């Protein structure tokens, strides 16, 4: 089972778009059993596959919908409110993934207020309460035997939740726009990768897949120049493929988009082709280091 974490502490660089692409690539194209995890309190990743609800206690927050298997009249569900999120791992709750419109894709969605709470634990408690919780969850036999790939979308921060993701991951992917500020975010993530690499035993390395250029615009020179100089500094860790700046990604994100996944577009579609190319390169990089 591979656990791919999509990280960058700068927001708006394409973490959720990349997570979607990977989750859908492995489930739709490769027909693998995929579990998507949304660790970002903004819950955008979850919203693509579930009808997230407004948190009655915190209007700007989102909570998962009632689970399809929830039966308020069943004695089994007496102690459960019918909603389950990946944030539950920080609070000793069970996690019940939700099914999606894709047969082999399941998702453990976000829960805004709980994830914000986990992010805010005081320093002394962090180790026990947050850092290791996700890896504990993902090493459960139930989880290991049920999925081939875990795809994790993360919050735009370097806080405890992101660290718990990095600790649990087998592979790290850093999407970034080829502009100065997002590239600073790359630096933060490379640091996180380094400290995790130093911390881990040698037989369980954290594979850095590299930087995936996102929202790449071929018309100007700024993206190309930054891409070239980044490639120059870290030649092994910048992907060849690029996700272009295209309206189609925004359209696929809209409610009621048809078709709902980029992989359901006609084969000749340029966007679909470049995304497939990127996913293939990522897949090769994963297998090269197994």
């Amino acid at each position, binding site marked *: 089972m591979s656990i791919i974490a999509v990280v960058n502490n700068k927001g708006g660089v394409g973490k959720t778009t990349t997570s979607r692409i990977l989750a859908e690539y492995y489930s739709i194209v490769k027909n693998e059993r995929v579990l998507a995890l949304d660790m970002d309190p903004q819950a955008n990743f979850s919203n693509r596959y579930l009808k997230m609800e407004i948190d009655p206690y915190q209007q700007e927050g989102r909570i998962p919908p009632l689970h399809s298997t929830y039966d308020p009249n069943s004695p089994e569900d007496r102690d459960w409110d019918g909603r389950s999120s990946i944030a539950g791992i920080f609070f000793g709750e069970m996690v019940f993934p939700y099914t999606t419109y894709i047969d082999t894709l399941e998702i453990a969605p976000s829960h805004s207020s709980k994830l914000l709470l986990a992010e805010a634990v005081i320093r*002394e408690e962090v*180790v*026990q309460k947050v850092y*290791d919780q996700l890896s504990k969850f993902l090493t459960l036999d139930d989880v290991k035997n049920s999925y081939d790939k875990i795809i994790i979308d993360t919050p735009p921060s370097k806080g405890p939740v992101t660290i718990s993701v990095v600790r649990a991951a087998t592979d790290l992917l850093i999407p970034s726009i080829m502009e*100065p500020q997002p*590239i*600073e975010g*790359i*630096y933060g993530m*490379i*640091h996180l*990768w*380094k*400290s995790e*690499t*130093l*911390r*881990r*035993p*040698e037989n369980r*390395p954290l594979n*850095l897949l590299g930087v995936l250029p996102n929202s790449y615009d071929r018309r100007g*020179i*700024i993206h190309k*120049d*930054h891409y070239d*100089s*980044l490639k*120059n*500094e*870290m030649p*092994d*860790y910048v992907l060849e493929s690029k996700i272009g700046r295209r309206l189609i990604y925004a359209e696929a994100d809209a409610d009621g988009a048809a078709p709902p996944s980029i992989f359901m577009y006609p084969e000749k579609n340029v966007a679909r082709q470049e995304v497939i190319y990127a996913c293939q390169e990522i897949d090769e990089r994963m297998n090269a280091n197994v």
Partner: protein
Amino acid sequence: MSKKRFTIAPDLASGLRNTIQSASTNQGQLHYDMMSIDAIEPDPENPRKLSIHRNEMLNGLNTSDPNYQTKQADLEALNDLAESIKRVGVRNAIEVYKEGQKYRIISGERRYLASILLGQKSIPARINPKPDEFNLRYMQWVENINRQDLSLREKYINLMAMAEAYQKTHNAEINEKMLQDLIGISSSHAYRYYCLLRADKRIIDLVRAGKLNNLKIVQELVSMKDKGAREQIISWISSSKGEVTSLENYKTVAGKKAMVSKAISLGKVNNSNIAKYLMDIVLSDARFNKHQHKFNNIDWSSAKSISKAFQALFKTMETELSSEEA
């Protein structure tokens, strides 16, 4: 005008490069974890061995124990450490390696015991690959050597373990130069440790008994040329009650200086006739009169000449008498 080009800021660029470089060369070097106390066991051959056992630590000491005082001191030190752990936690991770089902301590036994005393369930640990015997002793040495409170006895045990392990793994005796390179100390300091390493059993017994706790004194003893004086000093130290911190007092009464202090001054006279009278009596003695010819040229009006003659006379007498005794 040339077209504007963009590039990553130089400090960011070098930051990226260095971070990647460091990650790929140091993988697994800082493998830390919060580890369950139950998964950890102490090193049975730890050079910094405590006098008390784990159950004594937890159940209290027996006042009739002959080692009660040492144990009490060890327990108090552990309690102090526990108190600080309670306030700020274990600040420095202990070092362990996997041995069978358990993780064995390389360094940090006191932190481990103090944590048990506090009832802690886990402790931060750095997990090392299993070191070979020599590297294990070497790591313990490095950890211990700069401690203020490490006795020479403990240093000796560590040093011997390290030397023996070196012999086993490298099939060669450890020498002074190796000590210097290994421990990273000055050559004079390395020489002192080397002296400790090759000191004879009587000196080591003094170190073990805590009567010698100073590397410099050990060096002085080991490298003393006058074997007789050395033996004398060693027996003096073994009969002393506490630790010996200086050899100066011993040295003035043993060995070379002791011989000088046996000399007897024959005093002074102002009347040269007394000198002449004594000289005549001595030289008339059957044992000495064969030396008479050496004393024919004394200027009896010169005090200097007379004194010189007497020096020669005493020397002759000593030679003559000692050959007679032998």
